């Protein structure tokens, strides 16, 4: 399998990338980790005239906590995220997510930015970012804008990014005390997309009432999904197995999966419920450990 011909442009700054994107428009594709794009090009499902390689841009691979936010540069590799002690200790849900994306070799190139910008509902980070209420920072010819994650995913393979915009950073609110998150993915084998996966983030107050609840779901609708009703059902309540089962049921009801080789839609919905329930339990454990 051989990709179609294209022109290759290497950029060394975000401005240079944005300038090129503005000039080339939809003819150009951004090459980040390339682990989804290049296979699509081999099958000629993507035939961009230009590839703009942003990998040489220095300083886009930061992982830092600043001003109450975890900031991830768009070029942070999944394997870096997976190995980050900051992430492991403070954002275990992100660690959970990174370590189940594709396979370890793919993760050495695949980037967090690419995982979101691809707009693939089967990708894993979108659900986690939805659960965490992340923000996506994009730079365009008119400067930078911050896109709330809820506005970011528009359709299958379509995001709020404009053709002349580059995703530069992801911001995640720092976890409050008594909070915890977890991502649980059920896949047929390593390297597969999820049959269903759930990202859950919970924060409790001193009275052990749920003050924040975030639930994101992977590969269960035409775009990454937030289980709003389930979140609402959790808020203000004290965690219990009964409550979690109810929330998991609501999360499953929010899904709209398609039947495919991974299983029929009703099965995926059932697994969504199981994953949500188990992620809720794990998130609670972590929140309690984080008191």
């Amino acid at each position, binding site marked *: 399998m*051989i990709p179609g*011909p294209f022109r290759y442009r290497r950029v060394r700054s975000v401005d240079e990338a944005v300038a090129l994107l503005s000039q080339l428009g939809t003819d150009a594709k951004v090459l980040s980790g390339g*682990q989804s794009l290049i*296979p699509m090009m081999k099958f000629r499902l993507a035939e961009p005239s230009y*590839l703009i*390689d942003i990998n040489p841009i220095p300083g886009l691979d930061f992982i830092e906590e600043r001003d109450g936010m975890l900031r991830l540069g768009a070029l942070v590799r999944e394997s870096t995220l997976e190995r980050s002690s900051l992430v492991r200790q403070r954002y275990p849900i992100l660690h959970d997510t990174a370590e189940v994306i594709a396979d370890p*070799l*793919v993760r050495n190139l695949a980037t967090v930015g690419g995982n979101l910008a691809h707009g693939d509902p089967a990708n894993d980070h979108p659900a986690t970012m939805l659960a965490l209420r992340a923000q996506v920072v994009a730079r365009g010819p008119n400067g930078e804008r911050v896109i709330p994650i809820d506005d970011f995913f528009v359709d299958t393979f379509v995001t709020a990014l404009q053709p002349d915009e580059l995703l530069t950073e992801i911001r995640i609110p720092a976890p409050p005390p008594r909070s915890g998150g977890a991502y649980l993915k059920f896949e047929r084998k390593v*390297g597969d997309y999820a049959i269903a996966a759930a990202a859950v983030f919970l924060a409790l107050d001193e009275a052990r009432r749920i003050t924040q609840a975030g639930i994101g779901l992977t590969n269960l609708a035409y775009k990454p999904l937030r289980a709003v009703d389930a979140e609402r059902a959790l808020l203000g309540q004290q965690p219990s197995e009964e409550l979690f089962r109810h929330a998991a049921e609501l999360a499953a009801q929010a899904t709209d999966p398609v039947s495919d080789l991974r299983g029929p839609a009703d099965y995926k919905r059932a697994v969504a419920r199981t994953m949500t329930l188990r992620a809720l339990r794990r998130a609670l454990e972590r929140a309690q450990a984080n008191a």
Partner: protein
Amino acid sequence: METLPIQVTVNSRTYTAEVEPRLLLVHFLRDVLNLTGTHIGCDTTSCGACTVLWNGRPVKSCTVFAVQVDGGEILTVEGLERDGQLHPVQEGFWEEHGLQCGFCTPGMMMTAVALLNENPDPTEEEIRKAISGNLCRCTGYVNIVKAIQYAARKLREGATVHVGGA
């Protein structure tokens, strides 16, 4: 057709070439440099037969364009042996019968080399996870795990080998 100049260090030797942007790294290694130890087993970044180290990290060279590695360092299976001395991972695969048809072996070994660079004493579970981007159809993985454990022991015992980049 656009071509671009690249300079790449492969197994400690520096090469310059003019390549079409779409030339995949694996074809650059195999067809341009004649380093045919790196194999191709799929179209979907699934099998890992083409695994090489790029600046020390194992990547699937079928999913990297040669132009991307301009200025970088690549290590392939051909670069593992130094001064007639097999790398402990190579030795482990031979000692523990970690290969049968040999087709996935170079990629599998490159992943193993990178793993042991990072984690000199991996558990069986860690090894299995680390090689889960490399498919083997012959061995059932049991002896591959043993081969990597053999190499880990050998490396911990202080075998003098270069590891990683070049």
